[in-house]
């Protein structure tokens, strides 16, 4: 099984500028969230979380029912639903559509599922131009990197990084003022919006009773991507469903607050198909691409299927002390932080990144802030047990397993354990610094075993006072 990427962690931890960027950005997002979910600001926050969890649980438990309802309503409003098993299906559909319509340029708003399936790469290989339009995603596209954070993709980049990037990739004069950099991006991307043939969006929510997609954003790029081109393609994971438009009250009251501390983001779009008769602008065609890509596998596990409740707010990342140290790129997949830690092994199998479920102190900060109440630490523990079981079945991890077997035996035989421990404390200065002890000592002073255990001290105390217990 592959090893832990320790050198990469060391590099990130040693980069003090990066550490500051990650720490202060996440701190800001934490503080903004705290201000708007406090009881004074949102008195029914906990009730909303419970309700959101219930709605998602119900929807996921009846996913086929709601998917067919969604499909029927999308169709009724003049759109078309395309079910896709994986990256291959999505590419085939989009390339086919582009060919039929003579389309070459695609503008795209943020979509994590498209990162999963390497959407941009696949389409570019088929001679289509795909332009990310969210400023952070655009920067990352120019840099050739994957997003650093679900909500703040370029969290780790400085203005100097952006200046260099724009000069190199756009041929503009070096500009370090952030407001001016934004104007450059606006100018370049506006041209793309106005000349694009297809607009691709993600979907924050899919609304079954309306055949609608809901897009939540601050910049306006999702609105533009879905309003100027003649064709709108929304790509979403099958788990993004909610039953009714009226359920948006619960989810929209939670999403912005949890993600960035905004009661509502600047733009919330509720889009249900191509433009209607009489409407002056909007697309002529609408396609909803529903992606599985392994989600049905997660669905099959009743304990872990709650992982599919995620509404991609990023709150767990912001509050995770591990994410705040190692940042987004040290996670093996496009999803980082606590949500990444629980879904990556479920999508890829525990053998691919066996260290991942263990890279957590189980502090529980994630579960505390998750708007849909996913029990992340509980799932991490389950995944840890799966990793050790997988190791056993492939003949690995024998030393650790025997160690714990021996330990458990010892702990069930108190008298033997205690006499061994008291021997150990006598020789405590001589215990060699290998394995876990060496690991501990790399960062901290090592505490010594006490010369007399509590067992011994208690026995002495009872003798001294003449009592028995």
């Amino acid at each position: 099984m592959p090893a832990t990427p320790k050198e990469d962690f060391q590099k990130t931890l040693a980069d003090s500028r990066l550490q500051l960027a990650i720490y202060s950005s996440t701190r800001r997002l934490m503080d903004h969230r705290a201000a708007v979910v406090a009881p004074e600001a949102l008195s029914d926050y906990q009730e909303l979380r419970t309700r959101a969890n219930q709605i998602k649980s119900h929807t996921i438990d009846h996913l086929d029912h709601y998917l067919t309802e969604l499909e029927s309503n999308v169709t009724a409003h003049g759109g078309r639903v395309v079910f896709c098993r994986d990256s291959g299906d999505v590419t085939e559909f989009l390339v086919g559509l582009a060919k039929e319509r003579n389309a070459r340029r695609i503008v795209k708003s943020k979509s994590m599922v498209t990162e999963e399936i390497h959407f941009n790469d696949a389409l570019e290989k088929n001679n289509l131009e795909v332009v990310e339009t969210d400023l952070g995603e655009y920067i990352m596209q120019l840099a050739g990197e994957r997003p650093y954070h679900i909500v703040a993709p370029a969290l780790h980049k400085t203005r100097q990084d952006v200046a260099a990037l724009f000069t190199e990739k756009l041929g503009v004069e070096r500009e370090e003022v952030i407001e001016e950099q934004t104007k450059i991006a606006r100018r370049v991307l506006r041209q793309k919006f106005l000349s694009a043939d297809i607009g691709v969006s993600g979907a924050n929510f899919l609304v079954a009773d309306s055949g609608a997609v809901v897009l939540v954003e601050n910049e306006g790029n999702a609105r533009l991507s879905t309003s100027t081109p003649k064709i709108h393609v929304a790509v979403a994971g099958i788990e993004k469903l909610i039953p009714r438009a009226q359920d948006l009250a619960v989810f929209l009251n939670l999403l912005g607050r949890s993600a960035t501390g905004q009661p509502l983001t600047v733009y919330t779009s509720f889009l249900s198909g191509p433009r209607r008769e009489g409407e002056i602008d909007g697309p002529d065609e609408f396609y909803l691409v529903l992606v599985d890509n392994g989600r049905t596998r997660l669905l099959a596990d009743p304990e872990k299927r709650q992982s599919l409740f995620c509404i991609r707010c990023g709150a767990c990342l912001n509050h995770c002390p591990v994410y705040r140290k190692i940042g987004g790129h040290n996670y093996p997949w496009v999803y980082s932080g606590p949500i990444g830690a629980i879904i990556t092994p479920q999508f890829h199998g525990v053998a691919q990144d066996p260290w991942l479920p263990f890279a957590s102190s189980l502090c529980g900060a994630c579960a505390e802030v998750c708007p849909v109440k996913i029990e992340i630490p509980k799932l991490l523990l389950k995944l840890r047990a799966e990793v050790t079981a997988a190791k056993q079945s492939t003949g690995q991890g024998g030393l650790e397993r025997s160690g714990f077997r021996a330990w458990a035996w010892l702990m069930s035989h108190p008298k033997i354990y205690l006499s061994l421990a008291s021997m150990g404390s006598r020789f405590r200065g001589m215990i060699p610094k290998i394995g876990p002890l060496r690991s501990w000592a790399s960062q901290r002073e090592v505490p010594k075993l006490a010369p007399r255990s509590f067992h011994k001290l208690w026995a002495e105390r009872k003798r001294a006072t003449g009592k028995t217990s």
Partner: protein
Amino acid sequence: MTAREQILSDIRGALGRTETSAAAPLPAPMLRFPNMDIGVAVSLFRQKLEKLNGKTMLVPSRAHVVEFLRPLLEGKRAVAANSPFVAACGITQMPGVQSGITDRDALRDACASADLGITSVDYALAETGSFVMLSSADNARLISLLPPAHIAVFPRSRILANLDELLSMLPRPADQTSSLVLITGPSRTADIEQILVRGVHGPGEVYAVIVEDE
């Protein structure tokens, strides 16, 4: 097997359901909104939008709208929506204002070169300082999106308490429009070093002109 059949079959297998399995009932939606006095709603709306750097104006009646807008429109090109309320306020007669466009390409070109987009709203939300706009013959999407500034003119009676109240009045927006959008302040980003910049793709300046006596 088509992808659709495969996926639905995999889902049913995973959940232990069949094609004819019923869906268990879902509790009624949770919609919470106060019974807000209109004067309170107006104040709250203005406070919230101004906190986001939007600008708000209260005008006594529709007859006064034009004089309030004149300084904003001075020397500028504007595109106005085909909204009856916008027309009734006399905005379409103002110099520099283009309106009555019904062709998609013409509208897009006009908006791309305009300094201001002027619309009404279908509703407004007090608790968040939001405009609610449904795409229709009276209201094209791009007018509130392409120009660098957006002015929304509306009677105060269209202000609701919050999103929950909107959804209780409009349980199925898809029955009425292909696009319902909530606009909450000027376009913004903090993607570079978490520094806030306004007017990224959508309008960086937003004005609400509220007609008090309607």
